[in-house]
């Protein structure tokens, strides 16, 4: 017998193609989605027509595709989760989820994933869900083009928008998250790309991650979140061309970096934040080509940070460029543009001949006595700052940029 019988091959091909294309099951308005899911086999598509459906704790374990036509509404009626997923190759596309339960003990969510992989959540709208999309112990997820909007008044009334716990190799792209507790929350989540999301007006942090190594965050926009963006205890992070804006408040940061190491922060824009970047215990990170503009403090660099490099950044129109809490400086400032720089450039190499000290005496005073901020821009304070510039005595001697640029660096980024 020939090993490669063409008929046998054809037969196999037919079986394979039949199972992989699957059949499609339609749910008409008023029909039951759980029944359709029950009937479906792996590889099938369940198409749900436009309409309102009540769904609670619908469990999906098969590899099926769930498609909504004309945004059918799945109403959780304020009880528990709407869909629970534990499986492979599951797609949920084009649904509107409303009214999950509001339980912190069970973390009610619109869709909750356990131990899943290769799942796609795309083009859904989540209104007033407690948690939005909740993933745990999963991998290879694609979360794309979803809109998550919560209208809760207080922080404890809402959960996180996109919540990943112990997940790896995911893509989170083009989502819009508003009014949740944390916009995007990642914990023990690795090798994940977060691209082009808009995260605004969340109660706590726009982006919050801990122990989430090797992730990249590119072209996201974080705006007016309660306390800005906070990231902690993580190494090897890439943050590129994001916009951090309007984080205003006493404990609000464009981005708070705590114990972050070996990371790159490149080409981001920090605008209208009380504090652009607050750094504590950060090491060996690079900050290159960022724009800091109209912040209260562009950088608060605590003395516990070491071996960080700030290169070719632009500091424009900030009230204070840098402040710190000690006299030890173990970080490097190279070739940044400071709009407050008043030196000259005799040899015309576009690098100022006089080093620039970005910490003003008054910012040290304000660090110690916040009330003193009310005297900012008074003639007295200007005089004091001038004197300190001539004879530095209180400000840390090593916080110095030896090659300040005369003109703003060309950042090669196109922020909208």
């Amino acid at each position, binding site marked *: 017998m020939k090993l490669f019988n063409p008929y046998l091959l054809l037969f196999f091909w037919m079986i394979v193609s039949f199972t992989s294309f699957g059949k499609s099951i339609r749910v008409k308005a008023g029909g039951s989605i759980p029944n359709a899911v029950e009937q479906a086999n792996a590889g099938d598509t369940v198409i749900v027509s436009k309409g309102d459906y009540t769904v609670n704790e619908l469990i999906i374990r098969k590899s099926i595709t769930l498609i909504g036509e004309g945004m059918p509404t799945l109403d959780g009626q304020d009880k528990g989760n709407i869909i629970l997923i534990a499986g492979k190759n599951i797609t949920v596309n084009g649904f509107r989820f409303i009214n999950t339960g509001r339980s912190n003990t069970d973390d009610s969510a619109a869709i909750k994933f356990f131990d899943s992989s290769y799942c796609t959540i795309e083009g859904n709208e989540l209104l007033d869900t407690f948690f939005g999309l909740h993933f745990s112990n999963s991998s290879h997820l694609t979360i794309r083009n979803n809109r998550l909007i919560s209208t809760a008044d207080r922080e404890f009334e809402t959960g996180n928008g996109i919540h990943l716990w112990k997940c790896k190799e995911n893509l989170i792209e083009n989502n819009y998250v508003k009014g949740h507790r944390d916009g995007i929350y990642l914990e023990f989540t690795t090798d994940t790309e977060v691209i082009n999301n808009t995260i605004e007006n969340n109660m706590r942090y726009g982006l919050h991650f801990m122990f989430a190594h090797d992730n990249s965050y590119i072209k996201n926009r974080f705006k007016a979140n309660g306390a800005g963006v906070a990231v902690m205890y993580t190494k090897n992070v890439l943050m590129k061309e994001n916009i951090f804006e309007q984080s205003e*408040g*006493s404990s609000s940061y464009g981005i708070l970096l705590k114990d972050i190491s070996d990371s790159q922060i490149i080409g981001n824009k920090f605008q209208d934040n009380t504090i652009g970047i607050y750094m504590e215990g950060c090491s060996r990170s690079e900050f290159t080509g960022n724009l800091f503009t109209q912040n209260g403090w562009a950088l608060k660099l605590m003395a516990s940070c070491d071996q960080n490099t700030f290169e070719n950044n632009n500091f424009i129109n900030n009230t204070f460029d840098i402040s710190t809490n000690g006299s030890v400086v173990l970080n490097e400032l190279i070739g940044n543009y400071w709009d407050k720089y008043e030196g000259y450039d005799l040899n015309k190499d576009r690098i100022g001949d006089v080093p620039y000290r970005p910490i003003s005496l008054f910012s040290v005073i304000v660090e110690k*006595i916040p*009330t003193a901020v*009310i005297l900012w*821009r008074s003639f*007295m304070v200007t005089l004091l700052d001038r004197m300190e510039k001539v004879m530095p005595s209180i400000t840390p001697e090593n916080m110095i940029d030896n090659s300040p640029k005369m003109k703003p660096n060309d950042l090669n980024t196109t922020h909208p």
Partner: protein
Amino acid sequence: MLKLLKYALYDIIQSRFAILYTLFMLLVAIAVYQVSEDMSKVSLSLLNIMLMIVPLISAIFATTHFFNNLEFTELMLAQPVKRSHVFLSQIIAVVVVLSLALILGFGVPMLIWGSDMTVLTLLGIGISLSIVFASMAFLASVSTRDKAKAIGISLSIWIYFSLIYDGLVLYMIYSFADYPLEKVTLALTFLNPVDLGRIIMLMQLDISALMGYTGAFFADFFGNIKGIVISSGILILWMAIPAYFSMRRFAKKDF
């Protein structure tokens, strides 16, 4: 009264001072606009002019004007006109000329190169401070017979409000750093018109920094309608009270 005011105005405009002052302001404004396109930078550069130079010139000019016009004033007092009218015509003429110089000097570049809320606020503060310091200078002038002494007093007032006062406040904040000082410092800013003007500008220029820590307290106060009404009310008091006292003094003064 109107006739008196008319003559007083004629008199000032004919003197070279008004034209020079306007030209100076115009030059400063043009220079600043040439250097930067960014409106917040423009207002930052103009801020020190408005908070330092404008009060200084107002105080000196008002004092010298009062004494240069003393003979005319005495002549007028011999006529059957009210003393208060003579006084008001003088002070109003000075205030009008000072404000017009600012409006023309800054207004023309603003019309050409554009303006925004911060620049307009700054102009308003400049005008308010002119009036405040002119009325304090008049108080200094009616209080003494000697021109040099009056100029000395006006200068001291200026130095006190623009330099020494802030130093004292800073010293106080430093000494009592362990206590909650927000309300006290807020009250202290009301006692200095220059500080008041400066803080109104801070609200526009450094709002991000003020949102932090205790700054939020000030931002809250000056940010809402009540705060704006109170602070402008206090600025008006700063204009009216010295003017009122100098008018009373003027009414009783033996020339």
